[in-house]
């Protein structure tokens, strides 16, 4: 970088006139603080939680280590092999537990509980859907605190459409296994799986009005429509019974959410258009293509500061997806009930490994993408994990940590925490770095140690 401006340009700067389009420079060097040296610790912290379902096969995931904290060896267990090239840039965390995912007297239903407890730490209520009850998830807790700085407080994405149904797992509503992000204890945030839809949410559907007068009028209309429908909702709420009023509350919350976003977009200088092609309208069936598009979009969302918090589900919990891309026709979930069958175990490992391979692409992407004077990799905290360990257990959960979290994390370690250490302790540590004061979250009993300097 050989050009230092005296003053910082606003983050959103548009180039106009190129083939009639509007091209945003997500982060020009010119927007970097005009300082001599970058201060890596100062920049917006970002967080992505990537979730994968159906647990892992223990021997192919965990390292056999003598002591609690060791540097990661060159050779990683089979499932994690795709991450070997990044072994200095990831840490493996073992021993973490989500107690809320356990039966605690409620009988079978580990998948439903695993999904809904992973980020909430709650013990979900067994129900077909009328009275869902989990908890507020960590990402949403953080989004409430810091989401105000960006257009989207958070994004919820995934690669598998949720299942419709009142009963997905032995009496647990499908809502529990469809979402890890919960805005309130009774409102899950269903992940968006369509790359095109994510793109249009972030950057508009392309009907950007260039004439400022016409644009101003459109915005005025938009606001009047929002006012008008809010008025309708208020009128209705006055005459409704309690269950119906709850529905109207949901409605008004959602409308206000849109209002806020419009305000923010205005404050930040209008809609932006990225230097990425619009994804195709259909959802890619090929898993590699689908995950890559989603990881690209996540990178873009961070890079354009559309959000700082993203949750992403590689597939829904208890997923029955068949990974024909690697020649596996059986349902993933079915295979995990392998009963010791070597062929099935091998297929489970191959699926887990295949997903890790896709995640490796995301790490590469973060490393290659600038975020101010650093890279997204330097800024972001990313976890890759699931709410099930071996055999549908809820302890010793598989977890990869990556991203330097603005310099917080020293990576390249295998850390085995004491058994029964709450996963919520990691949530507390991550929220802390996001600037969200949380002394305690769910069943946490401290902040997870060994992540930074020893």
């Amino acid at each position, binding site marked *: 970088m050989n050009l230092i401006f005296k003053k910082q340009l606003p983050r959103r700067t548009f180039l106009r006139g190129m083939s009639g389009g509007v091209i945003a420079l997500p982060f020009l060097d010119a927007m970097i603080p005009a300082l001599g040296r970058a201060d890596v610790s100062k920049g917006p912290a970002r967080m992505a939680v990537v979730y994968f379902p159906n647990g892992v096969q223990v021997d192919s995931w965990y390292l056999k280590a003598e002591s609690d904290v060791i540097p990661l060896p060159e050779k990683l267990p089979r499932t994690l092999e795709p991450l070997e090239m990044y072994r200095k840039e990831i840490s493996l965390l073992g021993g973490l537990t989500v107690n809320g995912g356990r039966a605690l007297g409620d009988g*079978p239903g580990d998948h439903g509980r695993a999904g809904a407890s992973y980020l909430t730490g709650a013990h979900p209520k067994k129900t077909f859907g009328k009275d869902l009850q989990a908890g507020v998830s960590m990402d949403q807790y953080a989004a409430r605190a810091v989401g105000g700085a960006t257009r989207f407080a958070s994004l919820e994405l995934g690669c598998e459409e949720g299942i419709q149904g009142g*009963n997905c797992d032995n009496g647990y509503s499908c809502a529990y296994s469809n979402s890890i992000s919960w805005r309130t204890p009774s409102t899950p945030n*269903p992940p968006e799986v369509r790359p095109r839809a994510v793109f249009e949410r972030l950057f508009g559907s392309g009907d950007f009005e260039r004439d400022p007068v016409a644009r101003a009028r459109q915005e005025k*209309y938009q606001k*009047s429509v929002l006012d008008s429908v809010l008025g*309708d909702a208020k009128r209705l709420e006055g005459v409704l019974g309690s269950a119906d009023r709850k*529905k109207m509350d949901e*409605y008004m919350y959602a409308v206000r959410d849109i209002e806020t976003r419009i305000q923010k977009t205005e404050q930040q200088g209008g809609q932006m258009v990225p230097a990425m092609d619009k994804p195709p309208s*259909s959802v890619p069936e090929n898993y590699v293509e689908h995950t890559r598009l989603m990881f690209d979009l996540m990178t873009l969302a961070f890079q354009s500061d559309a959000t700082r918090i993203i949750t992403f589900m590689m597939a829904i919990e208890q997923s029955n997806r068949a990974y024909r891309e690697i020649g596996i026709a059986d349902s993933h979930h079915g295979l995990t009930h392998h*009963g010791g069958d070597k062929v099935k175990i091998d297929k489970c490992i191959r699926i887990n490994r295949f997903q890790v391979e896709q995640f490796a692409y995301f790490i590469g992407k973060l490393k290659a993408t600038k975020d101010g004077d650093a890279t997204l990799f330097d800024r972001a905290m990313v976890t890759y994990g699931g709410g099930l360990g071996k055999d549908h257990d809820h302890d010793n959960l598989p977890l990869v940590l990556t991203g330097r979290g603005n310099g917080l994390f020293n990576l390249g370690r295998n850390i085995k925490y004491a058994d029964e250490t709450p996963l919520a302790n990691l949530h507390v540590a991550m929220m802390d770095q996001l600037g969200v004061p949380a002394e305690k979250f769910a069943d946490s009993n401290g902040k997870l140690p060994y992540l930074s300097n020893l």
Partner: protein
Amino acid sequence: MLNEHIFSRIPFHPGLLLPGTLVVVVSVGCVSALLGQSPAVTPPPASAMQGPSFTKDVQPFLSKNCYLCHNAKLSTAGLNLSAYTSEESAAQKPEVWDKVLEKLNAGKMPPAGRPVPAKTDVANVTKWIEGTLARAGFSEEAEAGRVTARRLNRVEYNNTIRDLLGVAARPADEFPVDDSGYGFDNNGDVLSLSPLLMEKYMAVAKTISHLAVYGEPLPSKPTQLARLLNRRSPDADDVLSAGNSGIYLPYSLRGAMYGTWVSPVDAEYEFRLRIANFRGDSGDLTDEQKAQQAAERKKRFEEARAARLKAAAAGQAPPEVTPEQLKARDEAARKAAPPRKLILSVDGKPVITEVVEGDSAFGYSRGEFVQRVQVKAGEHFLRASFPELADLKDPRENINPDMRRALFVDYLEIVGPYNPSSSPSEGYKKIFICGHAPGKHNASCARPVVRNLMERAYRRPVTEIELASKLNLVALAQREGDSLEEGVRLALQAILASPDFLFRVESDRKPKVLAAVTVAAARPLSEAVAIPAAHPVSDYELASRLSYFLWASMPDAELFRAAKEQKLHKPEVLEAQVRRMLADPKSKNLVDSWAAQWLQLRNLGRTKPDPKLFPTVDDELLDAMRTETSMFVGAIIREDRSILDFIDAPFTFVNGPLARHYGIPGVNGEEFQRVTLDGVERGGVLTQGAILTVSSYPTRTSPPVRGKWVLENLLGTPPPPPPANVPSLNESNIGTEVSLRQRLEQHRKDPSCSVCHNVMDPIGFGLENYDAVGAWRTHDGKFPIETAGTLPGGKTFSGSQGLKQVLKTQSDAFVHNVTEKMLTYSLGRGLERFDRPTVDTIAKQVAANDYRFSALIMEVVKSKPFQMRSEEVAKP
């Protein structure tokens, strides 16, 4: 046998839910109950009352019919009926007897296969229970219940937009999946509204209002509107976006391509169809053979060229191929590739009809078939195929050794519009009812236009205040210098985003505080326990209840008229309307929404059969299975047949490929036709491919899963979830060293498994003659199929016919179950304890009316919960 439980994701109806903390999971032979606290009031001994006695009547009955499972040792599903040894101890637990009563009344217990107890014995027991419950303060009266405001689900949204504005777009296809509860995705409590969905509602309100007012934005000159592509293989691998962007349609071994397309405007469109013809191609040859062929061809070519050059140099005409040579060449090509008819049809009408000859030019070289056709605006079904291939004995005859299809439709491009109609669209006329030409409206139009839009969109009259709020938007647009039309569009945008449109809200009377419902001891049966007051829903609300029930859409003009005249609630008007609505094509939504969810058809194809094991099952065949069951249910509705036909009926609908899949002779071609069945191998939903496939694994059948499917969906008695940590089924040598049946029998020796599996497995074995994709078989691997089974209690049966006979003896349970499903769907809420009398009444009436489908619909419509709404009882 955890392995047999992995399909517990299939949504099911949980049975009746008791209010409050009493949650009951209904089951056969396995009643699981999470019992709440018993009421604090201790009822006095019943000996004071005349009537059946616990020790003399009830206990012997329980001992004979129930103790087998519900004893101290098994305590099946947490229920041990043998624990109650005296009148006093029994009366302590009214909630237990409440459950027993529900099972007995509905005929759900004793479970399928057990001897059916004498009616008089059952009557004595139920009478004793009713007395006990009455003394404990349990109400016997049906309540109307309260339905929570229902957000339109995706199907309803699309249909409503179509009927409200005449717009053919299917905007809701882009919305997130609706959650469903109690088996259906129209449940008011469960349908939530996330900010993400609201964003889409806002965006769609804008685009749809533009579409409705200004019509589809048409390109200035005809352009390519769609490119429909055929999948290259049954696997997803080949569907990569690189290069070929377009819409990929289902895979067909016979090379067919089909799907829907929405035409934006009445106009001419050009269909450009390209096929691939790899027949007679050398894909099956070895590399050496191919090289040799190429060398020979090259040699021939060189010789011919040399001959031509030589002739030219000599100033002679080039040598002609003799007619004999030509004929022989053609004949050889024809032999390798017989001529095949190719038809492209739009909504069933042929548009392109060609004969694809076998000639020496293979591959794609034939170019495109092009045809320009007049098409109306709206959704159309397109199909391009080679109909004769439907009659191939085995569809794999169309597969070359290199796995490529010999003949297939490659792509279809649609270019247009040519000469688009300039007259205002249907949608425009529905909006601008003042009848002026576009651009010629005057100020007085705004009021009636907007009022009409609002009343139809909100499905009720609107107040002046409501009307003013939207007229304000018209005025705003006009102040900004926009036209009146733009103003109306803006108002429409707000109407479509309004909660009054998105939710079906029903009005309440003022909530009032009822005196606390105290439970009095020793209340005589005749004295009604206070239940919340209820009022009939308004005629407009009734119109919406009817239309969303039978059509999954808004009321039409005639329903609105009947509501406006306040006649709809009159029994004769109501009945006439219901019959009219059932006869309307829109009642197909009962099949697509109600039946498809009840029978779990929507899960078909979610996990596809393994193409390696079932190479003849392609997407097209799965779609044919779906069509069969849809047409079958449609026939029951249209012909007003008995609902017992679901269990067994002497007819079904198949086309050539599906008939061959089933082994039904004499059916050819792609068209579906009704066939009469002798009932031996096929008849009823249980023998239909869609049901048999959806209750199987991708790789094999699972008798327990099928047994569970029957118990859950036909009898309404789902087995409880398996205990934790049951071992998996060893599958390694099934079919080679041991049969699936033997393995399962070994497996369920554990008594904790056998309680439920003794019911589930025999039912499933009765269907073992149908493989995991519903084809008939006599062997599984090297083992002959055995379908005989013994149900707990000694009842034996064999095969699907025997199973159907068993189910017919359970017709009470079946009718109760179908009634519950229909009532749940019609109301959009889960059923409560207080709905039991309603269900009982409907079920009785249905039976009294020869089980006719229309009786079921009519009784649901006439029922208290459908007609009325309870007041909200404020908690004191």
